[in-house]
């Protein structure tokens, strides 16, 4: 799959060119195994540029109660890594897919197997919230070899010295965390978010995407002034819970329309 449109990694990075990339998140296997496919399709229809799939893990310590709840349900529904790879494969011919995956899930499958399976199924990048760059050295090399991008996190608490390491490790995009906290919707864009984006952009050439807490068109618009991409998770999972894929798609369309300079599919 990676050869048809150039490399996985260049495809991922290409999604940020000339526009603010809209990156909706879904928990693989939520609200049901088939339901998650419908959610992803709705995202793509609504203008999602990159689909982020959360691979369900029993102990997701970077996530707040909403995503944690969807994860528990997804595991009960029978979602596993094989299923998430298959789900990714279904979307990958239309948009790049990234996985949000905890490191134990990677280790359990075996790092090299996990990476080659990702590449095979069109997973272009990985966000691993519990793998800071110091622990990722060996992993980075293997990921590069497998043509899967690494998307390290940068937080408001990240030091200047560490930003350089994060920049060096980022073969995909840099996932900028808007606040010190877990995932969850916040009312407005906190000042730290602007600050971390500016600091990352000053040091790092990879595209930046802002996540954690974006739950309205106005916040997304504010974020897009600074970030190359906007990641939306908790709010979408709340909408999926109440109204399903259709409602999520409708809401995401509004965000998509609100983002400046977005070129729709």
């Amino acid at each position, binding site marked *: 799959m990676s050869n048809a449109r150039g490399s996985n990694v260049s495809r991922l990075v290409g999604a940020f060119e000339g526009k603010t990339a809209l990156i909706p998140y879904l928990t693989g296997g939520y609200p049901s195994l088939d339901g998650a496919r419908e959610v992803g399709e709705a995202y793509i229809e609504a203008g999602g540029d990159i689909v982020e799939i959360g691979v369900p893990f029993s102990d997701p310590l970077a996530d707040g109660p909403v995503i944690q709840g969807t994860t528990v349900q997804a595991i009960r529904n029978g979602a596993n890594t094989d299923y998430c790879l298959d789900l990714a494969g279904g979307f990958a011919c239309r948009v790049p897919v990234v996985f949000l995956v905890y490191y134990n899930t990677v280790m359990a499958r075996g790092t090299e197997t996990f990476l080659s399976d990702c590449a095979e199924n069109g997973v272009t990048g990985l966000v691993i919230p519990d793998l800071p760059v110091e*622990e990722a050295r060996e992993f980075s090399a293997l990921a590069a070899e497998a043509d899967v991008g690494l998307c390290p996190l940068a937080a408001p608490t990240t030091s200047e010295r560490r930003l350089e390491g994060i920049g060096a490790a980022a073969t995909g995009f840099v996932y900028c965390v808007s606040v010190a906290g877990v995932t969850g919707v916040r009312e407005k864009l906190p000042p730290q978010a602007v600050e971390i984006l500016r600091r990352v952009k000053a040091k790092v050439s990879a595209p930046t995407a802002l996540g954690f807490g974006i739950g309205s068109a106005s916040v997304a618009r504010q974020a897009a002034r600074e970030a190359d991409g906007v990641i939306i998770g908790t709010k979408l999972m709340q909408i999926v819970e109440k109204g399903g894929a259709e409602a999520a798609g409708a809401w995401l369309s509004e965000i998509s329309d609100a983002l400046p300079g977005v070129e729709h599919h």
Partner: protein
Amino acid sequence: MQQKVSEQSGYFGPFGGRFVPETLIHALEELEDAYERYRNDPKFTEELEGLARDFVGRPTPLMFASRLTEKWGGANVWFKREDLAHTGAHKINNTLGQILLADRMGKSRIIAETGAGQHGVATATVAALYGKECVVYMGEEDTHRQRLNVIRMNLLGAEVKPVVSGSKTLKDALNEAIRDWVTNVEDTHYIIGTVAGPAPYPRMVRDFHAVIGRELEAQSKEKFGGDPDAIIACVGGGSNAMGAFHQFVGRPDTKLIGVEAAGRGLESGEHGAPLALGRVGVLHGSKSYVLQTDEGQIVEAHSISAGLDYPGVGPELSYLKDEGLAEFVSTTDDEALEAFQYCSKAEGIIPALETSHAIHYAEKVAKDLGPGRNIVINLSGRGDKDVEAVTEALDLYKTSSDVVGESATNPNGTDE
């Protein structure tokens, strides 16, 4: 001997590391810097040792357990009496060290996780001593199993937050504490209660508990003229075991034996024995043996003792296992309950259910070694907290059938 070099980078051989969200890295670096700066600072050491002596009651005694020695008919049995430390368990050693660091780092708020509640009580105690706000996360199931400790924490001014996610036990309390820490990292210090978690916790917690082994070494010389032939300790996360073992690691004449929870039996799948049956993985910030499925989902542990009910284990213990520097075995719920009762009756000491696991296995060690040798059981905590749980498990509540003070002339039974 252990690889001191790899310890510096937060690893024990291949185990350990710092697998946490980026937001926490700064706090861990800050903690590591503070620990490196103060661990050999004379003022810090003096304050810690003063409190250990006057507040905790150290040194804790090394006591000859004569009745168990006689009952088992093997090696001499000694108890290292950590149950006599203030608040009733070894946990206070670590919380005291960490509150001193938190204070020097200017943190006003303390959080902790707890299983059996002893770490929660110890944290609430030192937070009270230093006038800090304190929140303790505890699995909802454990709040019921350890009601007495919840009351103690409340009395000490801490807020106990029951955790209803997952298995509602220690593992989930750790998840919630980490989430709190990620959110409030600026003013909050997380006092992790065991030798698990991201670097520098495993090494730092071990160092604060290593006083157990240092005292034990000196007391052994005084009481029986040399090192013990074996030291036996229960293992949940592994803090009391590492505290007792550290001074003796790499000495061939002292066997180090850690006892995990076999729960309803290793073959039942309901246990807390990751060193026996886990696979290497990442849980709560470090790489170690973990109970998990082939897919990497963490498996819920089971033990009758809330403090051993944990699917992971400290990374240094994984290292000691793989290097053959310590031996790890397991004891079932029923065996621990049995030891809980006979220790109470034979020695006049009601041990924690956690500790009872070690006591049960010690019988085999004592018999294998034979008379004239010396074994030390690290009596990690007292069992007051477990009395209700044990009563329920064994239907123990009874009084003598002889009623004292009943009077034939007073049918209402009053004493007037």
